[in-house]
């Protein structure tokens, strides 16, 4: 066990700091051109999009989780912009790099990397949520096109997306997942209708998407016919992002402590309250457990077979979010019944967004109960559910 980074990485850290000193000024965070130019320089310096090949707009570096961690730490310290978020970067790029034809890669990856193409993920359907394998949207070949009919739901970022990563049934005779294929679909066409869904926060981040005779060229099939399920399982490989989650938790904890100080200063329950201190320390126990587990995972190579700690990550993340929301509600006082959306100058009631969002964490990307199935069946080798719902 050795938590030092070693001379090699400390030298690299020096290089990253020198780069930031020379190229980043935090005063210009609001200057879009400056930020875009900074990102380009950071890619050229091998610091952002590290493992994406140079020809597709990345830095073309060998995967190295420790270097990625040093970059995250130093960029975080300097409050410098990091990689763009969103489904395009997180999902479309790795999926296309792994499975796409060279034509698909050339056409889609560079503009996605540059932030010009936005993507959404067309997986879930009204009758296929946790049981995603049973999805019913069909795609059939008609001449040079696939013709698609069906309905998607909970489609995040559908409004404003240019393209959809679509999972559709192309082989009706094949059972469940074996009948699915992975397609790229232009959102800007008459057969695609996006209807935003209003969430409990009052805003709309996800939508229903109705596909009625929507078309996409046959050459926009990703992978083989019937291989869609496997393609859809592509994750951010190479440089594991495990270490990022506990960093987010630590920042959330720091904000929560500040909130507790503010609430107390305003005459509410706060940091001097033994109950609040106790709950904060219980939460901190979970956050430290999450951090230590992430470091263990980063120190091990379990290949493609996730170990029990990896399988538990989402439940632990949910536990942290839930505990944060509970403590925030305890201390918010009167701010706890104000609508952050309607306040002209929202104050601490913005924590209600975290409170609502913690429910989203428990549901999105596989509900907690589905996680428990996976943990029990894959992690503890308990008998499979007869419905065979887990993968």
């Amino acid at each position, binding site marked *: 066990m050795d938590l030092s980074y070693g001379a090699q990485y400390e030298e690299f850290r020096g290089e990253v700091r020198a780069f930031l000193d020379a190229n980043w000024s935090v005063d210009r965070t609001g200057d879009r051109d400056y930020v875009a130019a900074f990102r380009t320089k950071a890619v050229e310096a091998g610091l952002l999009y590290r493992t994406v090949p140079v020809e597709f707009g990345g830095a073309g570096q060998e995967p190295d989780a420790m270097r990625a961690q040093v970059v995250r730490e130093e960029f975080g310290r300097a409050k410098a912009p990091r990689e763009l978020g969103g489904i395009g970067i997180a999902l479309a790029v790795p999926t296309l790099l792994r499975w796409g034809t060279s034509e698909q890669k050339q056409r889609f990856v560079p503009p996605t990397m540059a932030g010009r193409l936005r993507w959404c993920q067309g997986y879930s359907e009204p009758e296929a949520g946790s049981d995603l394998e049973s999805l019913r949207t069909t795609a059939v070949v008609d001449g040079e096109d696939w013709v698609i009919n069906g309905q998607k739901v909970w489609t995040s970022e559908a409004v404003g997306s240019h393209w959809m990563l679509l999972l559709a049934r192309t082989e009706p005779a094949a059972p469940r997942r074996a009948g699915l294929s992975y397609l790229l679909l232009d959102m800007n066409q008459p057969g695609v209708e996006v209807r935003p869904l209003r969430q409990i926060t009052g805003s709309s981040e996800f939508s229903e998407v109705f596909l009625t005779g929507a078309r996409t060229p046959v050459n926009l099939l990703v992978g083989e016919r019937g291989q869609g399920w496997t393609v859809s399982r592509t994750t951010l490989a190479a440089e594991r992002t495990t270490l990022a989650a506990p960093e987010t938790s630590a920042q959330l904890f720091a904000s929560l402590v500040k909130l507790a100080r503010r609430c107390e200063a305003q005459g509410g329950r706060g940091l001097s309250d033994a109950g609040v201190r106790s709950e904060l320390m219980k939460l*901190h126990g979970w956050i*430290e*457990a999450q951090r230590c587990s992430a470091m263990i995972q980063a120190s091990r190579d379990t290949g493609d077979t996730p170990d029990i700690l990896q399988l538990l990550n989402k439940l632990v993340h949910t536990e942290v979010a839930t505990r944060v929301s509970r403590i925030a509600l305890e201390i918010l006082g009167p701010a706890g019944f104000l609508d952050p959306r309607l306040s002209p100058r929202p104050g601490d009631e913005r924590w209600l967004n975290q409170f609502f969002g913690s429910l989203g964490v428990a549901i999105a990307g596989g509900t907690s109960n589905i996680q428990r199935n996976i943990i029990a069946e894959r992690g503890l080798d308990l008998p499979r559910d007869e419905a065979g719902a887990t993968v």
Partner: protein
Amino acid sequence: MNFDLSPEQYLLEETVRTYLLKEYPAARNLAIAEAAGTDTGWDTDAWRGLAGLGVGGILVPEQYGGLGLGLLDVAVAAQGAGYGAAAGPWIAHWLATAAIVRGGSEAQRARWLPGLADGSLRASLVWDERGTPVLGGRSADVLILRRGDSLALVTAEGVTAEALPGIDYTRPIDSVTLTGTPEPLPGGDTMLVGWVRAAGHTLVAADSFGGSQRVLDATVAYVKVRHQFGRPIGAFQAVKHQVADLAFVVEPCRGLYWYAAYALDEALPDAPRAAARAKAHIGDAYVHAVRSAIELHGGIGYTWECDLHVYLKRALLNREYLGDPETLRQEIADAEFGAPSGGRP
């Protein structure tokens, strides 16, 4: 950066665990429980057996016959001991031995360490803190006493020990009265007092993690073989989810005690907090884990014959020893945020 145990450390944990599973199956632990309260109150064979593996001297420098390793190595042995519900006051022995290693005079080290390392002598710890009885006070040859901010050493002749009716049958507890004159431990200053307490938090946390793993493993095995309604109960989602939640409470804990031990070995400034946090978090997790395991075992889990209660009772002692979870959480909060304004009621 590498945050994982070395192959040697995994082997040490496995050696202790498999020795105990083989030599101390449930029936033998239950016999120890049955004999609780009699004589010295514990199984000296178990002591000799583990001592024969060298665990008494993990921290003791090689010149005194030990292995000269760190607290993390002791902690992984403590995990194995917790898994196998090792009989005997090992935690007190390790802590008192560590105090002599770090704070003893040359003469004290030469007098005691070789015997403590090979297990022919036993050490215990008299710690003036609420909820902290003397583990194995009657059987100790030498005891380390905390008196305020300093440590002193006293031999068995200098104390009288009286058995307390402890609920944890595998680790007898005593109240100890000083009758002789203790010798000072030259290096037994505030720093060492803090170190020994933090090391204690770490070792108890490791023991609790080992015990939690054992009851998880036992439960996973049980729900696979116990059939009702024509299938293993582990096939029912309600059971499956409760077992998954048990794993969720137990598995992410290990790094907490690893980090605490590492931080103490490396003298990192956050070591005492990390140790207290590990002890509080895993202490609660252990009680929760055994309760859930017993519930999942149904009626058999509530019997004396099923050894889960041995673990439940170890969890109860671990929870209180050197500070209960809530006390420790308030301590860490004081260190993180300062004392509460307006003071504590």
